[in-house]
């Protein structure tokens, strides 16, 4: 197959699936809808593999495929073109690969839902937008996809739109993302103003000739966009609420793919960020703060999906921390492994929720390991992977980030390890409360406990395997590996290295130091595991029910530090008060007065003149003749009275 055809087909297939399911979801049967939805994404995945092979066999030369010239304003052109290079290929494989598995899973999970076809249509539209985001060869296409995934996220969070609070969660996600998108848009405008182009190839080649202040501004604005999309402080509060959507959506959009768009964007713009160290410093600090804050909130959450949501926010914080210290390939590595194990955990949680008849509170679960064997084992593997214990994938990626952070600042590393300890604690707390101890649900739930169908457990098993072996794509040199991923991604940073060689110079750690760092992070993770085990298995503690008094500090954390309430007070209340004022005062006394006044004026004036309409034909004809005579006189005045 021609390579450009295959590149163009990658995003087109899910779009086709969206059109088929979107137009025909009332007529197409559930089986057909799931086949169309899954097959199109699977097709994209196979094409991605084909493109990947072609890319490797073609000496890793970047491929640009132009579909058409999209906008042309004077000398300024925006082409609708796709760029296939190391970064977009990795994202393509993750998005379509994990996407296929989640589509397959959804066909089992959503089977009882009446909006089945609609769900698959939205999922396909999401995949299409996400593919545009990662494949685009300029910032405008990226923005196009960026908005598309935001829209799909909104549609899918509010998928069960009969529930008002779900709808509100969807709106919250949308509005928060809009705030970030505004920053992203301003960043693009600045790029256009200073570079006169939005194509990556042109911008990155010329980045070094632009002054640092401008680049700092551009990168800061772009990072605001990433804050919104990737749920970083201060725009992170939408992600936990986004768990209102169906679980496959949480797995696909709010864990594996969409939320990593911000990291993709920063890695894509690595030249600009490398040349703007001030922004990078902030990226690192915000990432660290988010990682710690979200991890600490996760400790006291009781909703299985909320715990995972905060864990996602926290892991995204780690990725940004890695970006902040210019460990771009390590962050990308964590994006990939995180996509595997977080999708696995969410899908596992979905399987648990499915088995528990839509119960999400871990206080009402317990002892599920006996009835849900496959879910239990795969969930355990995912949990170990995320807590970064040897030798599962999360260990390699998180450790690489932490190692780079240590070289930058040992203090940040210490805080990062603290976050890792919290991660380990809340993950195992959730794991033990869900799968071990005694069953705490109702009798009805006990009777209906069942392992999920094969369409749901198969993705779990595949993702579990990937979570276990995923770390080997970047097996570190210290263990005799090749660090394949880091070498593969090397060409992406060529421009940055050329522009600022000194930024890439940092001291190498000796092997003993590396082993020590690994030992510390694995040690604290295991220590947290043991604490969680003692608390929730040996002592059989169950978190307090709603309404029972809890210590003040715990209460603050349990209520997410009241951030939502603070935002409510700082932004929402004043704005709604202002809107109310405008509605009550400005609307009535200014706008209505003006509009009604003009109406009344016209009425009065026409009252004066309406008597001319006598109804007598003769009068009208007379008026017409007079008019014609006047026109003639005016026109021929000079001719007649010369």
């Amino acid at each position, binding site marked *: 197959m021609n390579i450009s055809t295959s590149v163009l087909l990658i995003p087109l297939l899910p779009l086709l699936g969206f059109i088929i399911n979107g137009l025909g979801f009332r007529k197409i049967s559930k089986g057909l809808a799931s086949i169309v939805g899954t097959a199109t994404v699977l097709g994209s995945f196979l094409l991605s593999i084909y493109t990947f092979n072609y890319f490797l066999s073609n000496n890793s030369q970047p491929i640009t495929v132009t579909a058409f010239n999209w906008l042309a304003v004077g000398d300024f052109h925006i082409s609708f073109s796709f760029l296939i290079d190391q970064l977009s290929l990795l994202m393509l494989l993750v998005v379509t690969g994990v996407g296929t598995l989640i589509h397959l899973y959804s066909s089992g999970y959503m089977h009882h839902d009446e909006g089945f076809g609609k769900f698959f249509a939205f999922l396909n539209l999401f995949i299409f937008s996400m593919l545009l985001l990662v494949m685009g060869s300029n910032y405008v296409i990226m923005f196009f996809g960026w908005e598309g995934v935001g829209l799909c996220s909104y549609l899918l969070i509010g998928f069960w739109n009969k529930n008002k609070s779900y709808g509100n969660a969807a709106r919250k996600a949308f509005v928060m993302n809009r705030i970030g998108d505004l920053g992203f848009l301003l960043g693009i405008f600045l790029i256009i103003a200073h570079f006169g182009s939005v194509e990556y190839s042109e911008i990155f080649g010329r980045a070094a000739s632009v002054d640092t202040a401008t680049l700092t501004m551009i990168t800061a604005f772009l990072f605001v966009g990433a804050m919104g999309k990737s749920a970083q402080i201060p725009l992170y509060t939408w992600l936990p609420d986004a768990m209102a959507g169906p679980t496959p959506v949480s797995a696909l959009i709010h864990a594996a793919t969409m939320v990593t768009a911000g990291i993709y964007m920063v890695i894509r713009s690595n030249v600009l960020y490398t040349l703007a160290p001030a922004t990078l410093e902030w990226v690192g600090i915000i990432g660290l703060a988010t990682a710690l804050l979200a991890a600490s909130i996760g400790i006291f959450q009781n909703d299985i999906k909320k715990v995972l949501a905060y864990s996602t926010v926290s892991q995204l914080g780690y990725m940004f921390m890695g970006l902040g210290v210019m460990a771009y390939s390590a962050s990308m590595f964590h994006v990939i492994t995180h996509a595997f194990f977080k999708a696995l955990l969410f899908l596992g949680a979905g399987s648990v929720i499915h088995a528990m008849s839509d119960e999400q509170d871990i206080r009402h679960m317990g002892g599920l390991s006996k009835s849900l064997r496959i879910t239990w084992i795969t969930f355990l593997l995912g949990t170990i992977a995320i807590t970064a214990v040897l030798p599962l994938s999360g260990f390699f990626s998180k450790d690489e980030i932490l190692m780079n952070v240590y070289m930058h600042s040992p203090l940040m590393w210490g805080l990062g390890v603290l976050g890792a300890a919290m991660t380990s604690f809340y993950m195992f707390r959730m794991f033990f409360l869900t799968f071990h101890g005694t069953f705490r649900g109702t009798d009805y739930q006990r009777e209906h406990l069942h392992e999920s169908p094969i369409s749901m457990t198969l993705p779990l098993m595949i993702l579990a395997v990937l979570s276990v072996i995923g770390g080997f794509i970047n097996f570190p040199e210290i263990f005799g590996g090749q660090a394949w991923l880091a070498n593969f991604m090397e060409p992406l940073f060529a421009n940055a290295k050329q522009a600022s060689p000194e930024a890439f110079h940092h001291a190498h750690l000796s092997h003993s130091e590396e082993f020590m760092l690994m030992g510390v992070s694995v040690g604290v993770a295991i220590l947290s595991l043991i604490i969680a085990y003692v608390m929730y298995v040996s002592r059989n503690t169950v978190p307090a029910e709603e309404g029972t008094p809890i210590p003040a500090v715990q209460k603050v954390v349990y209520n997410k530090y009241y951030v939502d309430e603070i935002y409510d007070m700082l932004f929402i209340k004043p704005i709604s008060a202002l809107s109310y004022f405008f509605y009550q005062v400005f609307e009535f006394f200014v706008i209505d007065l003006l509009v009604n006044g003009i109406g009344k004026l016209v009425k009065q004036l026409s009252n004066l003149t309406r*008597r001319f*309409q*006598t*109804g*007598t034909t*003769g009068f009208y*004809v007379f008026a017409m*003749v007079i008019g014609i005579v006047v026109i003639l006189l005016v026109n021929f005045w000079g001719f007649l009275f010369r």
Partner: protein
Amino acid sequence: MEVPDVIKTIPLNWYIFFATFLFCIGVVGVLIRRNALIVLMCVELMLNAVNLLFTSFSAYRSDPQGQIFVFFIMVVAAAEVSVGLAIIVMLYRNLKSVDVGILNKLKW
């Protein structure tokens, strides 16, 4: 193109004055007469004044376009008269009168 002498025996101005005269009769008729039939006839008079003007200009310029226009006007006038007469017939059936002065309900 040269205009034949036989046409030049009557000067163009006479035609113009005559057509203006006819047109004014038509206008005055429409204004002062109340019988719908006569109003319609006066309208025809105005149309024909214009037709006369067209043909005379056409002859004095040796350009047949004006005469072609006249044919069009005659066709449209015929159609218009048929509609107008139909309206007058309906008017008479309903009101037993063809006085346009009665038709003054459509006002204010």
